[in-house]
């Protein structure tokens, strides 16, 4: 928790220069949409009958598990690296 500063050049989580364009090899917006929709439908359907799921930890975790965890699982099965690899930060043009 320190005073905000510009993101470090290769810091993980720093905004990359990709904008909204999908890089080759990255899943499309449709896949993203399906992951979000899948997370919402499954969470609501299960939570109606299992209300312990309606919890401020489980709810956010559920979304991250679907949107990040599922693709990570697929990568793991394909023996691809799961942890983010960061290239040097390119300043937006």
């Amino acid at each position, binding site marked *: 928790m*320190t005073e*905000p500063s510009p993101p470090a050049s290769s*810091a993980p*989580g720093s905004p990359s220069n990709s904008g909204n364009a999908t890089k080759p090899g990255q899943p499309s917006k449709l896949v993203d949409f399906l992951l979000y929709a899948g997370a919402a439908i499954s969470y609501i359907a299960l939570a109606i009958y299992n*209300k312990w799921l*309606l919890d401020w930890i489980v709810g956010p975790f559920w979304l991250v598990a679907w949107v*990040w965890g599922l693709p990570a699982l697929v990568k793991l099965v394909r023996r691809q690296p799961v*942890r*983010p690899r960061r290239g040097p930060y390119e300043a937006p043009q």
Partner: protein
Amino acid sequence: MSWAAHQFEVYAVEAHLPKKMVGQISWFAIFFGDFTPDFLAKFWVYGFNFRGRHYGATKPYQWHRGWPGMGISHTLFFGILVTLGIWAWKHNRAWTIGFLLGFSAHVLTDVNDSIGTMLLFPFSTLNWSLHTWAYAATVKGGKYLDAASYFSSLGLMMDLFWFFVVLGSWRVLSREFWRTKVVPADPHAWSWLGQWLDDRGLLALYRSVFFYGVCRMIAWTTWAHLVARPIINGVRHNGYPFDLSWTGPWWVQRVSLPHVTPLIVLPMALILLGCVYFVANAIWERMESGSIRAIAWRNVRRNTR
């Protein structure tokens, strides 16, 4: 109390920051500020059962918002104390102001139920309430009755109101906004999380509070009106009846605490909201120089050791 409204207002605050603070307020701080009052008070409101015995507040409404009780956790006074503590600890205005705005949003939204909050604590322990819907957390009914009551009353409308406020500024949920306004305001926290999550995971984390708000609103409403089969006044109902009248629903026993007249509550809440934004705006630049001085002092101390 409000339910999903507290999740939505995190994004509403983020989307409606004063111009000079856009891209400089920590989203995590807004979230923790909005989350702190209920984190401190709510667990004991519902309590829990262990070996056939109930552990929790005997008067949930008194505990949650009253004095004596944890009502202090829902006062601007307490929010300001914690805010000062954050500033004294870290000298970080992104976190200090973010926490203050999030906390204030929670306290001011909660004036809507029949209990309200002690807006002028410690000068007055009277509660300020608009009585828009009935506060329904009881020992017997627990969380289920509370949820059924809230999502059958104007509370649901409050959630929808905040939902549409966020949808009206939908860009706050976009990847572009997150990249350009949210991450730069708190680069260290996002960088730390970025050790494990890629950009997609981090963006999902940012959106997850909104996701939770939408899902809990739909799930509880569906359960209350399509699944539950309550017996009210000896009559079995297919779902809890809707009642969108003021201080509804009629089928819940309305509780209240000593309070001021509801006529002055909305003006006072708006004045206090204006005061919070005015003060935050006024001290914003001064905090920057304070933060630079604090960092300089810290470096001096390190070098002299």
